[in-house]
């Protein structure tokens, strides 16, 4: 196995039930280093739950998940240490409203990574610069546009130097004219070689930027492959139906 093929995320037989409802029915999935994978599928297909299992915001019912070689479901694993290596970006940003952009970015650096204030500030400023918001370091979330808020949220994830970043519908809460700036940041990240797993409805972006598209329905991965295959020549009937439906909407 060459270095480039090293899996950052390995998921085996992942199942998740909420009460009697089984939302994930056995997911097997591998994500290589520097890969950008897109998960698409109808609402209720389990995409977000899958993503949230990958850093144990949801507790899987069974299965195995390894991140960069670490079994994150192992008994006694330090989940907080694991999460520092897994960035997450939320649909609703979830910035801390009582802290500045820099405060949002540096909180975990100081409390979880135990960096000094000066060091955390340097790293935080660099992360904000990466998303093009160096000059907004001292603005509060309420003073920023939705797109800027989401970029701060991305900087918050990047500051911890994660091995992988999970994006949970990062542009769904944004006004259409603000989507572009967030996608641009994601494109830059891909150029820089970040490993990313994205749940999103931005199919144009998926076509252009994704290495792989994963189609999920009813808690299983129905089909996955390069964007050209999924959008141009889907092998499964269910994928075809889904792609046809969203094409019809455009």
């Amino acid at each position, binding site marked *: 196995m060459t270095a480039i093929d090293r899996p950052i995320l390995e998921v085996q037989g992942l199942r998740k039930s909420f009460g009697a409802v089984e939302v994930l029915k056995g997911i097997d999935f591998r994500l290589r280093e520097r890969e950008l994978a897109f998960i698409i599928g109808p609402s209720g297909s389990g995409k977000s739950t899958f993503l949230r299992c990958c*850093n144990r*915001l949801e507790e899987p019912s069974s299965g195995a998940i390894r991140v960069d070689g670490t079994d994150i479901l192992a008994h006694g694993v330090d989940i*907080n*240490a*694991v*999460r*520092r290596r*897994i*960035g*997450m970006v*939320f649909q*609703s940003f*979830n*910035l*801390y*409203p*009582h802290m500045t952009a820099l405060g949002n970015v540096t*909180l*975990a650096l100081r*409390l*979880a*990574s135990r960096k000094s204030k000066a060091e955390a500030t340097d790293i935080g400023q660099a992360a904000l610069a990466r998303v093009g918001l160096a000059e907004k370091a001292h603005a509060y979330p309420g003073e920023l546009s939705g797109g800027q808020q989401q970029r701060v*949220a991305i900087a*918050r*994830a990047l500051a*911890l130097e994660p091995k992988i970043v999970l994006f949970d519908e990062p542009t769904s809460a944004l006004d259409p004219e603000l989507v572009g700036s967030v996608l641009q940041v994601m494109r830059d990240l891909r150029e820089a070689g970040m490993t990313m797993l994205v749940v999103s409805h931005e199919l144009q972006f998926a076509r252009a930027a994704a290495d792989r598209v994963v189609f999920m329905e009813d808690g299983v991965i129905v089909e996955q492959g390069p964007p050209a295959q999924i959008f141009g020549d889907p092998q499964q009937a269910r994928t075809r139906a889904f792609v046809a439906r969203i094409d019809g909407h455009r």
Partner: protein
Amino acid sequence: MDRFLFTFFNGEVMWEYLPKILSGMWVTTYLAAFVIVTGLALGLLLALLRSILSQTMPAPLSWLAEAVRLLIIFFVDLMRSVPPLVLIVLFFYGLPALGLDIAGLGATWLALSLVLAAFAEEIYWAGLVAVAKGQWEAARSTGLGFLQTLLYVILPQAIRLTIPPLTNRTIAITKGTALGQVVAVQEILYQAYSGLSFSSNPSPLTLGALAYLALFLPVVVVGRWIETRFAWRR
């Protein structure tokens, strides 16, 4: 008119009782300050404890946590349903019988502190619950622990939400220091009332009422300002 002034605003009588009323104001002030500090601190402690106990945990521990949680809720409900005056009198007579020699001042302080703690716990708790779930998830996703998230991310937002209701409740309970008169705490009302019986003139009562206005009217006005300033976003 002259008779009215002579009766209710008798300068001579007022002057005579002014020092007593002033000393009453001092007692009211420090009693109120102690009640506010202990009440709000205990209330916050209980709310944080309740939050910690509401976490999922393994079986034998979770039963204990549930028991303590229910105990906190019972304490809060009890202190909210029993009149403060009843508690003050009960503590005043009851605690010495238990070997705790507590004067009227101590009984009033303890009763009002517990009542304020109960109301404050409920308000803080409501504030903690009101902070969006996404805040927890965002903080935990960056590797912050439960307590770190609670103290640095959730609590500051909850406090902001709770400032208006907490201010009003604190003012209302602090005014309860006047109930200390019943157990001979020498605060304003006690001084004014004994002045009334002594001088057979209501002017000391008028003076007492003015003393209360001097202390609490600014607080009420500030409370009104805070309410509009930090209003709950509906």
